[in-house]
């Protein structure tokens, strides 16, 4: 037990000492790790920001059912209840004829022609049920329900058709694509980073393969040879994760003072900064996790080939 502790402390100590003694190698390896980890972190924040923007756009989309005039209130209430029972309906909002007129007048207060047009006749605006869907891709379900013959006794018309339907479908399609592209981008960056970091550590160990074979010839056990390299790679991972998270933090601090605009195209910087702040510890933990895991795994894999015993006769 004591001997094991001595060995463990030696492995950790040797790893730390090697880290210091191979400072240039460490800096080179860490520079690569910092860059790739920063790109991964950046792509995660960008993806979260895009998702947020998309949510804000899609939140504005709803389907309106325009009701026939002169229906008893009881029938309308029953119908609303039925609509709310649909699986894809998130919320409904009932706007009576009077409310619709009030809103119309308020919206067009600077256009006397339109105002006189509505004031001269009876209220021409229909009562409306505004339906917010859960999933934009399944708007057709709501439409089908509203088009049923039983529904048609109450509903005069549906907004989700013709030009409007086309526009909504286009937005839905575009946002779907963007969201998928975001996830794919994060994954691609993550995979590339893993490969680059793996390769970097493999190069670092390749540089010192002689040490590995010497230790092997002297009768060191696999874990005793490999341990310090794993420790060293884990130190790379930890430091790189911290540095890359700090870099992003500095980037936000700098952009706040340097950029007057709050968004760059689709990228809402304000939201990005808030997201980063709100998830700081979680993101740092994730970076540490990636750094440590890749460091450990790649050093184990990279040392393996130099530690093999010849089995060929």
């Amino acid at each position, binding site marked *: 037990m004591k*001997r094991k502790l*001595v*060995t463990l402390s*030696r492995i950790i100590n040797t790893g730390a000492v*090697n880290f210091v*003694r*191979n400072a240039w190698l460490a800096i080179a390896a860490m520079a690569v790790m910092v860059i790739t980890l920063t790109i991964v972190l950046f792509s995660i924040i960008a993806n979260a920001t895009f998702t947020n923007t998309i949510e804000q756009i899609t939140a504005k989309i709803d389907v309106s059912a325009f009701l026939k005039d002169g229906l008893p209130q009881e029938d309308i209430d029953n119908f609303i209840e039925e609509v709310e029972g649909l699986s894809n309906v998130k919320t409904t909002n009932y706007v009576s004829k009077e409310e619709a007129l009030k809103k119309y007048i308020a919206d067009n207060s600077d256009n006397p022609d339109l105002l006189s047009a509505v004031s001269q006749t009876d209220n021409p605006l229909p009562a409306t049920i505004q339906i917010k869907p859960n999933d934009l891709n399944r708007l057709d379900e709501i439409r089908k329900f509203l088009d049923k013959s039983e529904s048609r006794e109450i509903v005069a018309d549906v907004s989700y058709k013709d030009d409007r339907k086309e526009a909504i479908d286009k937005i839905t399609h575009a946002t779907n694509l963007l969201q998928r592209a975001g996830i794919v981008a994060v994954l691609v960056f993550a995979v590339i980073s893993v490969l680059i970091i793996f390769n970097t550590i493999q190069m670092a160990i390749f540089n010192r393969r*002689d*040490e590995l074979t*010497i*230790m*092997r*010839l*002297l*009768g*060191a*056990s*696999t874990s*005793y040879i490999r341990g310090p390299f794993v420790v060293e790679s884990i130190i790379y991972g930890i430091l790189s994760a911290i540095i890359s998270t700090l870099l992003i933090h500095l980037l936000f601090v700098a952009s706040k003072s340097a950029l007057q605009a709050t968004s760059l195209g689709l990228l809402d910087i304000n939201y990005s900064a808030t997201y980063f702040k709100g998830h700081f510890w979680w993101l740092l933990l994730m970076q540490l996790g990636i750094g440590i895991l890749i460091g450990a795994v790649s050093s184990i894999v990279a040392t393996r080939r130099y530690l093999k*015993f*010849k*089995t*060929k*006769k």
Partner: protein
Amino acid sequence: MLDHVDAVTHPKGYKIPATPAGILYSGLFAIIELMILLDRVTKTYGRSATPALDRISLHVEPKEFVIVVGQSGAGKSTLLKLLTREERPTTGKIIVGGIDYDKLRDKDIPLLRRKIGVVFQDFKLLPNRTVFENVAFALEIVGMGNREIRHTVPKVLDIVNLKGKEKRLPMELSGGERQRVAIARAIVRQPKILIADEPTGNLDPKHAWDVIAVLEKINRYGTTVLLTTHNQEIVNKLKRRVITIQHGQVASDLAKADYKI
């Protein structure tokens, strides 16, 4: 087959009667008293037509000092690599210090190597570690405590005349000093066997003799030494058992011999 058994003349010329008891005794003798036993060992690399070692049989007793000579490519290095289990024989049996290599599992190879001290021609020192750390490494891997290491390493550095150079890096040492560090590392665990692969190959005559002197000293303390060399002068002056290897076979095996290639 028999002619090869005959080829293994015991250097001290023991005659064991061919009775069942004698045969049994000789069998026990081989396992218990011999430090190194090679029995018809052949090693062929890859698909090469000619074997590097061709049915070599050897006995080395405890505390012997054996010099292996032979031209480059004769099979000396292969022989040493088989003993340290860097390579595996294509056929034949190897027993070193009572360990049968056929029964050796991969995870026990480090344990075997800890029992054999090896000095390499190219030193094989760890470049990032000081003299002290290089020697201490051999003790660290067997799990020796720090206090004992601090106690043992200076003593061994004293034997190889490297006192005061503990904190140097290998880069800062001369060839002879490096080789003595390598020897210190090989003997610090007090192995029963020391294998020295042309330890003087890269050294000038003065340093070469320093190294040989250390090997003789270690041998006097009771360690079996197996030395390969090209240096005729050293062989002739040592007056020890000389095994000559030619074309992968034992060409001669003589006690207190001279260099004869």
